[in-house]
């Protein structure tokens, strides 16, 4: 069994396949905790974890907060509106201040790609990326992989199609890195205007045709399409997007495998990228993703906290 030595989790790109497997395996053990009547273990008792969200998020923040609380850590949630950022303090100053308050881990979401990469090395606390700009969202990819593995028993050799706004999606990037490392075949599907330049170098198949992305797929991961992208002129209308790229039961039955898994990182635009008959249908594992998110985040918090306390002792 490989060992975990990272004090931070910044992205999937830098992880090895063994490290990803270790997180997924550890998460399996943590899944049970959430099924107990007392949904709590004392593992991180006395540790302080700060949730720093510079971007609105309900799902990820709640999931991380529950994960931390179920490990008995004390949590503090900071949202942008109450932070010092608006008073002209730089991000680095803010973090140095939080560090000086002796916290053990910082879970950070920020709209700028790469913010934590420049911060993490100089910081004592563990830094966990809860989404940075269009770059990475490692725990989302981990919970997606966990869900696939749980449902399909494996990841290697599976055909996974990621459908939607790839250009602006950190979920897509983290998933592509992780799935490729674990041996899946990844296809991305979007209108050409939402495909980033030279994405093929990440080792994915590319199509702009939804039927091709559905055909032969074991798993499809549907991304949220944001209204701002339409306003920025990247596609003509939400209506046209729904017609071209919206995943409906009819399209699934026509093109996809019978046992295809449908995933969505949420929040969903029902009737746009995903039709209600798919979101609530038999293929959907969307709510299981949410449940698994807590176990995966508990595993991540456990592993980085352990690695960080080892580091401090040495």
């Amino acid at each position: 069994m490989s060992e975990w030595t990272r004090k931070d989790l910044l992205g999937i790109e830098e992880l090895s396949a063994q490290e990803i497997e270790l997180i997924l395996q550890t998460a399996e053990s943590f899944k049970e905790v959430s099924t107990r009547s007392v949904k709590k273990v004392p593992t991180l008792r006395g540790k302080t974890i700060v949730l720093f969200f510079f971007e609105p998020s309900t799902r990820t923040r709640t999931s991380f907060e529950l994960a931390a609380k179920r490990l008995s850590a004390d949590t503090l949630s900071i949202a942008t509106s109450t932070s010092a950022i608006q008073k002209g303090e730089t991000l680095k100053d803010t973090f140095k201040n939080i560090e000086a308050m002796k916290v053990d881990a910082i879970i950070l979401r920020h709209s700028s790609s790469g913010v934590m990469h420049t911060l993490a090395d100089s910081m004592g606390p563990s830094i966990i990326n809860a989404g940075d700009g269009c770059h990475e969202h490692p725990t989302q990819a981990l919970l997606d992989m966990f869900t696939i593995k749980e449902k399909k028993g494996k990841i290697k050799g599976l055909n996974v199609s990621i459908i939607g706004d790839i250009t602006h999606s950190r979920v897509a990037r983290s998933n592509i890195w992780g799935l490729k490392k674990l041996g899946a075949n990844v296809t991305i599907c979007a209108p050409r205007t939402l495909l980033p330049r030279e994405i093929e170098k990440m080792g994915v198949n590319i199509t702009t045709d939804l039927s091709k992305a559905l055909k032969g797929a074991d798993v499809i991961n549907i991304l949220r399409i944001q209204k701002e992208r339409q306003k920025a002129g990247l596609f003509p209308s939400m209506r046209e997007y729904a017609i071209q790229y919206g995943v409906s039961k009819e399209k699934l039955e026509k093109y996809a495998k019978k046992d295809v898994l449908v995933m969505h990182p949420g929040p969903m635009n029902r009737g746009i990228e995903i039709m209600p008959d798919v979101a609530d249908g038999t293929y959907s594992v969307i709510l299981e993703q949410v449940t698994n998110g807590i176990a995966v985040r508990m595993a991540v918090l456990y592993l980085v906290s352990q690695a960080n306390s080892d580091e401090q002792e040495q």
Partner: protein
Amino acid sequence: MKLLIKNARVIDAKSNLDDQLDVLIENSKIVKIAKNIKDKDAQIIDAKDKVLMPGFVDMHVHLREPGYEYKETIKSGTMAAAAGGFTTVCCMPNTNPVIDNQGVVEFVISEARKSALINVYPIGAITKGLKGEELSEIADMQNAGIIAISDDGKGVMNADLMRRALEYASMLNIPVIAHSEDNDLALGGVMNEGYVATKLGLKGIPTLAESTIIARDIEIARYTDTGLHIAHISAKESVALVKRAKKDGLKITCEATPHHFSLTDEAVLGYDTNTKVNPPLRSDVDVQAIKQGLKNGTIDCIATDHAPHAESEKDVEYDHAPFGIIGLETALSLAISELVEPGILTLNQLCEKMAYNPAKILGLDKGYIAEGSIADLVIFDPLKESIISAADFKSKSKNTPFIGQKVKGAVCLTICNGNVVYNNNVSESAC
């Protein structure tokens, strides 16, 4: 006062000179270039194994004064320039207030007279406030002392206004320096569009944003029979466009910066904000095209686009950091390491790119060595190896991704108007 430089390898692009010679300087002028000059009144500078060139001319720097003196001043900027072997710099108008009227031009010139170590020529704005809306008072600024006009930092998006600017400037015989960027194509971008940007999740600036405007401006210049100098060319397509324009006989010139021939966008991996620059660091094919362009003469000169920023301004999210790299103190060693050492440029061609051509484009009687010419000179050791260190910088700012890099070539002495303005441990002794 007399200065006698002994045994230097004297290189001059204008006269195609490359020989071991002595140079005698008296009262700010070069009075004699010959072998074995003897003058018992002169101070001797031994330049054995060193290269003597005309002082470098940088037609593209940001000295930040007035308005941003915390980043750089005319004094600190010219100290940095002297340390880099430059004897003439032209400062861009994106100061606060903008150099868009005779008053600000006069301020810069009078400040330079007080505190500059070397020659400083201001560049005026093409449009008032760099807003791209109305022409500024170009003739009035020319009378006050500007040497060129540019809206550097922003593209002139209105093609009609660009046409009028070229026509008006050609009438005044003043060069126009174009910052070629399509604001819509580049909107929100922070680095080169390509695989690295895709991986990092950063918004890209396509090469297209530069090449389309260059194509447009070349056609405007062709139609109006005017000349144009294109600043900091960065893309392969842009080099090809300029090459064709030159072949067509148009009066198009262009420059490249040391960072654009030294680094690719791979340098952005790790999100170091000191790699954030506009135009952005491009891909390897672009860097190769820039090098080829320098070699085959498509690219006329090397300009640093020295753009100082305070550490606190760069110490932010990549998206929010200002664009810019300082370049005056690293230009020569990067040029030697990246261009001369690998055989892309000869020292004579380097002299042309860093001294003679920029002076010629600007209409300055500088950038060459001849008896009777002004003694603006640089002596450097082309073989000396060093590691670029922030502590050595004279500039107020340290924003460069080259810190820690091992390079070849170091400036030993800079002479401006016959005076030593920078001396890195060269002994001057009387005979």
